[in-house]
């Protein structure tokens, strides 16, 4: 399983590299902040681990760490996507005016 996951990581990185290569410098800031939002996807890991804490053993410290992980990841996700959207809505062409 571990090897498969590492492979998926590498393949995703390569695919991502080619897709992102097409983004013009004009949009580099929104691209970066969008990617930044996506990096908060680690919230999935936080949910997976807190599930184990909740179900298998109830540790106060574990619960706190888990909740904090979800909070930080979620700030990253929500803040990131919202900020990206805000920036993208500012981009207007001549015809849009």
């Amino acid at each position, binding site marked *: 399983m571990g090897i498969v996951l590492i492979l998926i990581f590498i393949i995703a990185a390569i695919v991502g590299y080619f897709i992102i290569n097409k983004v013009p410098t004009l949009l580099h800031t929104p691209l970066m902040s969008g990617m930044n939002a996506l990096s908060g996807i680690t919230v999935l890991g936080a*949910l997976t681990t807190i599930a184990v804490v909740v179900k298998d053993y109830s540790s106060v410290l574990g619960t706190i760490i888990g909740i904090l992980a*979800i909070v930080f990841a979620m700030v990253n996700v929500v803040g990131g996507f919202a900020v990206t959207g805000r920036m993208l809505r500012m981009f207007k062409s001549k015809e849009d005016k």
Partner: protein
Amino acid sequence: MITNTVYYIISAVLVLGVLLGISMMSKVKSANSGNTLSAICTLIAILVVMYNCEILTAWQAWLGLAIGTAVGVVGAVKVKMIEMPQAVALLNGFGGLASALVAILTIEQTSKAFELYVGAIALVVGFVTFTGSVVAAGKLHKLLPQKPVVWKGHSFISALVIAAIVAAVVVCPECIWLISVLSAFFGVVFAIRVGGADMPITISLLNSLSGVAGGIAGIAVGDVLLVAIGGVVGASGLLLTQIMCRAMNRSLISILVGGKAKKPVAVQDKAAQESTKEETVKDEKASVGDILTSAKKVMIVPGYGMALAQAQSMVKTLADKLEALGAEVKYAIHPVAGRMPGHMNVLLCEVDVPYDKLYEMDAINDEFSQCDAAIIIGANDVVNPAANTAEGTPIYGMPVLSASDAKHVLVCNFDDKPGYAGVPNPLYEAPNTIMMLGDAKETVAELISSF
């Protein structure tokens, strides 16, 4: 609980959705929809994972999600566009911290060697990302000195900390505290020595790291979706880093090691110079109006100075006035102008400059020779012709905007000192250059009222 096969299929669909969303970001028209699509896929992913882990009813999870969402929304609405570089850096740090916390829980919970080691690696990358991003955000927010802070034996300390981290991960992957402290310290060590103008590179590198941290955490907890998206984010950050490095003609290592041998090269006998300059400037000032009135084609070159002075709306007013007189106005933007990739574009779009007037360096560099006036606003190194000629200087070989080819060059910079790279700018001395020193907001206002 859904079966593994079903979960993999759902994950694959969501990853494709995210990838589609990202590819939609290559066109301005579809970019916002692309962002929304990525956001929706992320939301679905969260619900699927909660369902799969049977915690749809766990208050702990919902509490975290609610607080995080609230803070994220408020932060995103409140942050000013000018603060975007530090906001992105800070958010990035949060992502890293979250990955580190996930790693801590994984290490606590697992008994398998593979998960233990991968968890330890995720812990390292997560904490480095966290403290590195916080330091970068602090520098961008001017809470910390913008200049590279280089300690005595900085490289030695870095090497020592790296060695200690590697040793700790190999020997004692369950030593959470030790690894955390060492990694957090390393993040500070590496970010503190990077200077302000190298921030575009640091931010994109940290962005990459936060993706890698998530991806590794994903390998540790065995979540396909997390692994795949972490990989994409990691690659994107790395690509941006590479683009930025190429645009500065510097290697990543030289930026991280920061050690610039750049004492500003002799700022020549200033006083003497200034008195003569005062007069010439006064003489020429009359002609600034003539240049602008008669100009058919004007190129505006913005730099970090425009952001500092918050002069972007004045610049837009200037461009509007020129256009009203029938001139063609284009903006020439260097890839590393500002403090993050694409910084200038965002600032100009905020003040309603249509994005089809913003040109990247390669697309517009040949046009300088045909333009009547190049107006430089708070940019220095990116228009320094010395990059083409002055061998041995830090910027030699860096691709620059050939503003010097324009018939007239108006420079609205704060001072005539060498820029971040410490190389004096011969453009300032050129016969076709008119220097308008001072706060860009005021000098641009002067330009506006000159015709």
